[in-house]
């Protein structure tokens, strides 16, 4: 089976000289949900941003068989839906409906069709009732759902979610697990939340100082690197 994403020897250095990625090799296969674990600053988010072409490092990236170059970039951005950690940064349009139609309209979809796609995505994420609301009137969980809807409306093959449980309460996290497990797309999720990772992940990779230090199940990685949740009591 061909991987949806194949990354070889990816290196990236920030303008201030920090070497964030030191030769990362990675593959994502259809149906997988891969959890990216690792300490803050280990390179997880930097790596994720490369998969949507938002950062440009050395090495090779192929998405659905397409090389990461200027010609393929619009198609890659359609196929790889990126949900950012801070939903406030992602929801920049005045209303939920306008925000969810933003992606399809950018792809050149006709407004009527974009509205249909947006309604479908909002239905899928359980946010249909909020279509006329302003994003800043939503709760953190609702914002996250709308952010996911904004990406789903572009009909992506792959979803990348950066710390999706940030500022979600436990019911919100459970809702997010239900939503993500119901979505058919392959996923890459960066998180520090091991319980969440266990609930949705099919495998995990552990980032350490810009490299992948280990691959395995979420449980294996968590116990190997001391990432198990604190004991109760």
């Amino acid at each position, binding site marked *: 089976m061909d991987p949806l994403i194949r990354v070889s020897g990816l290196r990236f250095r920030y303008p201030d000289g920090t070497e964030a990625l030191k030769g990362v090799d990675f593959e994502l296969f259809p149906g997988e949900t891969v959890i990216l674990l690792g300490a803050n600053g280990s390179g997880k988010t930097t790596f994720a941003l490369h998969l949507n072409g*938002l950062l440009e490092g050395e090495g090779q990236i192929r998405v659905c068989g397409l090389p990461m170059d200027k010609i393929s970039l619009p198609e890659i951005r359609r196929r790889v839906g990126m949900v*950012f950690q801070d939903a*406030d940064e992602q929801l920049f349009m005045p*209303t939920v409906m306008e925000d969810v139609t933003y992606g399809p*309209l950018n792809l050149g979809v006709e407004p009527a069709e974009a509205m249909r796609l947006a309604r479908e995505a909002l239905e899928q994420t359980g946010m249909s009732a909020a279509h006329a609301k*302003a994003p800043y009137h939503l709760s953190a969980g609702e914002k996250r759902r709308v952010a996911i809807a904004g990406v789903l409306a572009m009909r992506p093959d792959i979803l990348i979610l950066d710390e999706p449980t940030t500022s979600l309460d436990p019911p919100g996290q459970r809702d997010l697990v239900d939503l993500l497990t119901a979505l058919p797309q392959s996923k890459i999720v960066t998180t520090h939340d091991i319980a969440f990772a266990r609930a949705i992940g099919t495998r995990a990779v552990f980032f350490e100082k810009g490299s992948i230090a280990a691959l395995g199940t979420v449980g294996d990685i968590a116990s190997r690197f001391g990432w198990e949740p604190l004991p109760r009591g």
Partner: protein
Amino acid sequence: MHYLVMEEWARRDSPLHRRDARVKMILLLVFLVWIGTARPAQPEAYAAYASILLVAALASRLPLLSLLWRAALVLPFAATFALLSWMAGDAERAASLVLKSSFSAFAVLLVVATTPMPALLAAVESLAAPKMLVMVVQFLYRYLFVLSEKAQHMWMAAQCRGGIRRASAGGAIAVLFASSHARAEGIHRAMLARGFAGHMPLIRPSSLHWLDISFLATGILVLSLGRWLWIL
């Protein structure tokens, strides 16, 4: 969560709320031009304009006193110039300055308070305003909430540690600007991730209803009549 009165007003329902944003914008422009060019010594004309505004305000079903209070925000500025005119011996011009600015502010307020911001911006764009300008206003409006919330959090954090000293206020403002810049970069990245290619796609405003066209025609007729009776 922030609660914005104007936004809540704009989402209400009334005959004025239901009219197309473009129609309201055109009537507002006509009103502003005509009141701006009204002669100072015509109290009947000002009474007529006040009546038109009063009818519109009643039709909007918004609290009149709150509207008046908000429109009065322009008074300190208008009064400064009115005072200069009055001191120069032109009391009529002083009075007309205050009336013109108050009526104009009230009219603008009425349109903004009866039209949701997305519809208002779409109307402005459809009336040939530069797309870039509309985009800037849209972002300013959207992130004003986020920024004010950030400022509020910083203020609370400072209060918890003894309040803001004058010497540290500059630093706090610098931090707010820096975080705004970081926020702007994040937003730009999120826009690129969903295919941003230099312009903001907007859902087109709906087509005009015959009621909107009648409203526009009646509005222009009433304003023209007022103009013809007292100004010419």
